[in-house]
């Protein structure tokens, strides 16, 4: 039992890194995702094609491969041009990769959220003399956010689990902590059970929170 508790506590030391990378990535993902969603609806064809290509590449390759490219490949490339470059911390490429991944997913969520808003809303806003972008900012996006908020929160839970691949690029998150302890103590089963429990400690309460919020919202909707 002592081993299991120790395994859990060691894994928990990775929680601050896992959570902060996830939070930064979800914010980055929401911001870039919104930009991608707006670009994917633009009239400009080349712009739409670039967005589509980016999304296809990000969603069509494993995040681990992207992380290796970003953390090591990119450094090699820049150094091969004779520029002295090193990531100050691997947390930076790790967060970028998670954020870009998240953006590709969220752009689709945001796009469908925007499309779910009745087109009469845009017409009403434009008929008051608002420009397209003003109407998006003041009328469409605030309404779309309510539709997509649960998907955002779910994406956060997904990110917490996906950041586990970042141990492979030297980020001391939950899984990495467990692996290091396993390597020095050979207590393999307690080490990884501890890792699993540390993830559950984060994801279960979060999922419960989201479900509670969704139930509250649907009750509120039903009341009207």
């Amino acid at each position: 039992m002592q081993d299991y508790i120790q395994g859990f506590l060691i894994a928990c030391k990775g929680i601050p890194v896992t959570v902060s990378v996830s939070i930064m990535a979800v914010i980055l993902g929401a911001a870039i995702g919104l930009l991608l969603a707006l670009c994917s609806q633009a009239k400009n064809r080349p712009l739409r094609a670039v967005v589509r290509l980016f999304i296809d590449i990000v969603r069509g390759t494993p995040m681990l491969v992207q992380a290796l490219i970003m953390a090591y490949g990119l450094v090699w490339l820049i150094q091969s041009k004779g520029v002295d470059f090193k990531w100050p911390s691997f947390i930076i490429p790790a967060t970028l990769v998670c954020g870009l991944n998240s953006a590709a997913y969220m752009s689709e969520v945001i796009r469908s959220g925007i499309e779910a808003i009745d087109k009469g809303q845009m017409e009403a806003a434009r008929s008051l003399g608002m420009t397209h972008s003003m109407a998006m900012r003041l009328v469409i996006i605030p309404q779309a956010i309510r539709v997509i908020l649960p998907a955002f929160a779910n994406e956060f839970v997904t990110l917490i689990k996906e950041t586990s691949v970042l141990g492979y690029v030297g980020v001391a998150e939950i899984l990495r902590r467990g692996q290091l302890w396993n390597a020095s103590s050979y207590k393999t089963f307690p080490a990884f059970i501890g890792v699993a429990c540390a993830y559950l400690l984060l994801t279960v309460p979060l999922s419960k929170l989201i479900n509670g919020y969704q139930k509250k919202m649907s009750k509120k909707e039903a009341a009207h």
Partner: protein
Amino acid sequence: MIEVKNLKKSFGDLHVLKGIDQLVNDGEVLCIIGASGSGKSTMLRCINRLEEPTGGEIYIDGELITEQNIDKVRTRMGMVFQSFNLFPHKSVLENLTMGPVNVKGESADSAKQKALKLLDRVGLAEKANEYPRNLSGGQQQRVAIARALAMDPDVMLFDEPTSALDPEMVGEVLDVMKALAKEGMTMIVVTHEMGFAREISDHVIFMDEGYIKEEGTPKDIFENPKDPRLQDFLSKVL
């Protein structure tokens, strides 16, 4: 003054408007009647370019309306929709102040004072802080009229403003529109309310198959219709 010249609109192979000419003078009320699919809503929506015309020109006070000046023109042209289209995430008061504050740059305070006056005018002063979903259809449409008026428009466009309402709520909306007409607002109204068209309009046009088939004073149209399609239409709706 609104002047429509040889207005045409097609959706692919479907020719909805086949050449419309019309003049609406300041202070005039024009009612557009006709069967569903006759192009009357499309004509209205072309005037403020919610639909882009396929051909022809539209002038407001002698100025040609184009893709470039449309945002500016729309501030002078209020629009009321069949399905109200109030902003559900904003209170009634905010629905009225949003345009003046964000588009015309009015101060929040003066926009609010004006909005309260307008709500009083449509009989909904006590609903200022409610959200649209808590209002009946008739109340929502009165708020939508007030929202359009908050921009101080020169002309008001109404696209079947009572068609989505329960019958007992039609009267309250028509009353607001009648008061507006009596105050001298220039209005273009697409409507199925023949009683309203007869009582309020200065000019009525009957649209059919993308053309103005007959036009004239309400008396001409309702008491002495000449076109057989209009006679047939009136016999069905009156």
